[in-house]
């Protein structure tokens, strides 16, 4: 059998076969192996952080990653951005009938690899199969639980003038990689997605700079969206420097070609941090010491201006306002 059938979601024999032959070998651990209605797992004393996210990316496989790695990293990163240590994930899959078994196994292997890298366990899951034509191959939902010994104040409310904005590396890679793959742009070399678990990187930062004021992974909407939100919440204008933004040359060229602004393009393996000016150097050093933060850079600062917006300084001495994105990114005509 090389294709998923409706019966695989029926709860019957094929359903159990799917669990025994695909899911348990990929993700098995003492909590999942119980196959109970819910997983009962220990957590350290303190607080838990919870989050959930759904993944509907097209294409399912793209240079640098796939929907499986994305589904793990997306949820792990949301936990990590609140300062939590991610521990457990749930895995819900909605699969379209006739989906190739080989692709499902590939996605599961990718989930297992990303989970192992992030140090999280898949402890429970659910699978539904929908009629052919009623889905896009596969949709994945993950929910995650993380541990916190104490709550960090990453609420952005303490942001003040003089604080420094740091970006952990080259921006816009994920969005461009997926768009190039989806639209068959045939770029050589193909841009690679940056999808990666950021809990290690976040921990490296928060260990040395616990007074970090804001932490976020700028996914959909890109840097422009996250920094606008911070500026608005703080009631202060954030100014970033065009020249300081780390970006891969190929990604920058693709953005120019398509008429897209990299500040609006999604990232899946980058974080933005707002830290007090006096901690900027050690924050930068901590990020750069981690494999996912080698190209970290200070990209801007919080100003005294109370307009609460995001602006960009051009290399020619001018500034311009960067708004929150209006909607779906659309490539231009010529």
């Amino acid at each position, binding site marked *: 059998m090389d294709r998923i059938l409706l019966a695989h979601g029926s709860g019957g024999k094929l359903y159990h076969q799917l669990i025994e032959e695909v899911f348990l070998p990929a993700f098995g651990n003492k909590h999942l192996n119980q196959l109970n209605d819910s997983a009962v797992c220990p957590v350290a004393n303190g607080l838990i952080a919870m989050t959930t996210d759904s993944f509907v990316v097209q294409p399912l496989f793209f240079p640098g990653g796939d929907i499986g790695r994305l589904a793990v990293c997306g949820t792990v990163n949301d936990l990590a951005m609140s300062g939590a240590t991610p521990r457990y994930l749930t895995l819900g899959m909605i699969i379209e009938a006739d989906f190739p078994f080989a692709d499902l196994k590939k996605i599961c292997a990718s989930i297992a690899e990303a989970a192992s890298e992030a140090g999280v366990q898949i402890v429970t899951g659910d699978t539904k199969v929908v009629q052919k034509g009623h889905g896009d191959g596969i949709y994945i939902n993950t929910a995650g639980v993380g541990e916190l010994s104490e709550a960090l104040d990453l609420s952005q409310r303490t942001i003040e003038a003089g604080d420094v904005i740091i970006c952990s590396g080259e921006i816009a890679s994920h969005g461009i990689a997926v768009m190039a793959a989806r*639209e068959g742009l045939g770029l050589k070399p193909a841009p690679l997605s940056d999808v990666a678990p950021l809990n290690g990187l976040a921990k490296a930062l928060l260990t040395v700079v616990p007074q970090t004021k804001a932490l976020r992974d700028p996914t959909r909407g890109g840097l422009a969206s996250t920094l606008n939100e911070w500026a608005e919440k703080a009631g202060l204008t954030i100014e970033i420097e065009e020249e300081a933004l780390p970006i891969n040359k190929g990604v920058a060229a693709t953005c120019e070609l398509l008429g897209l602004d990299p500040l609006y393009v999604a990232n899946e393996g980058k974080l933005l941090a707002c830290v007090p000016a006096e901690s900027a150097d050690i924050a930068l050093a901590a990020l750069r010491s981690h494999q996912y933060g080698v190209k970290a850079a200070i990209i801007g600062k919080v100003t005294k201006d109370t307009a609460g917006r995001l602006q960009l300084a051009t*290399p*020619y001495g001018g500034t*311009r*306002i960067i708004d929150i994105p209006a909607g779906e990114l659309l490539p231009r*005509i*010529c």
Partner: protein
Amino acid sequence: MIDLSKRRSPQLINELKRQIELLCQNEVILAYNRPLVIMEVCGTHTASIYRYGIKSILPKQLKLVSGPGCPVCVTTNDILEKALAVACCPEVIFTSFGDMMRVPAASGSLLQRKSEGADIRIVYSPLDALKIAAENPSKQVVFFAIGFETTAPTTAAAIEKAAEKQIKNFSVISVHKTMPEALKLLLPDSKVDGLLCPGHVAAVTGAAAFDFVASELGKASAVAGFEPADIMEAIIAILQSIISGRPVLVNSYPRFVKTEASSYAVAAMNRVFKPCDATWRGLGSIPASGLALREEFAAFDALKRFPEAAQVTGADNPACRCGSVLRGELDPGDCPLMGKVCTPASPAGACMVSGEGACAAYYKYRLK
């Protein structure tokens, strides 16, 4: 390969800025006793000028205005309503360039129709649309062909290929336009002193196609590239031409633009299309400024294939001042709708939709 970063170097920009300031002190320029108006007629120029803040570093004696150079912006609501009607036919896969997707007609946009279930796809080239047609023989694949001489040759190539390979389920709504006739209508009665000619169009038509701007209309002009230094060098050429008292056309973009046309592209365009009258948003009907399919390719005309959709009509939003903006008479910042009623999230007119529209560029890159 050309290293474009050199064309953006702050040192070079400062040097060019100094030269422009010097030229603006010339007695010929001072004698105008008002700012000199230089118009750009290419959406990519508009976007570049705003993105790099070029207006903010030029002396007060110069005023840059945007002309009708964004193909999305000059497309009328009437043709858009027809396109929406075609896109909603159940047997149709409708294909379009990305920036057309959000343009609002009275009845909605392509993006809205797509959300409602119409099969509307973004393509990067009409040849991609042709490929979709070959892969979906039971569907009618329609390409919304907009753009100037830059995109018309690729539409022509797709139609010739469709004819050759007998791909009969492919057709186009041709809204292609050509630049010279619009300029001949617009420039004589305008306050424009100099014209930045579109580098992309000139790469196809040859710089000589814009000779008439100086020789017939008496306006200084320069074919310009799209990096900040390219635009500033073209402005210098225009100022020098005005100072000399004998307006000429200068090719300031010789790394891509030749004097003569790209014979392959122009030949393809001429084989498939013939000039026709065309209606431009904000400018009205301009004789011989559009491209219609020749008789032998009439079978690829989507509006003939879908006669009911072709009957649908639409009117431009009367409150929208896009027309004045496109004629260079109104600065986007002076439009009463700007930023209040009309924003990129809910555009009132086409100039706010395309990233290359003067209003969208103004809104996005407005100065502090």
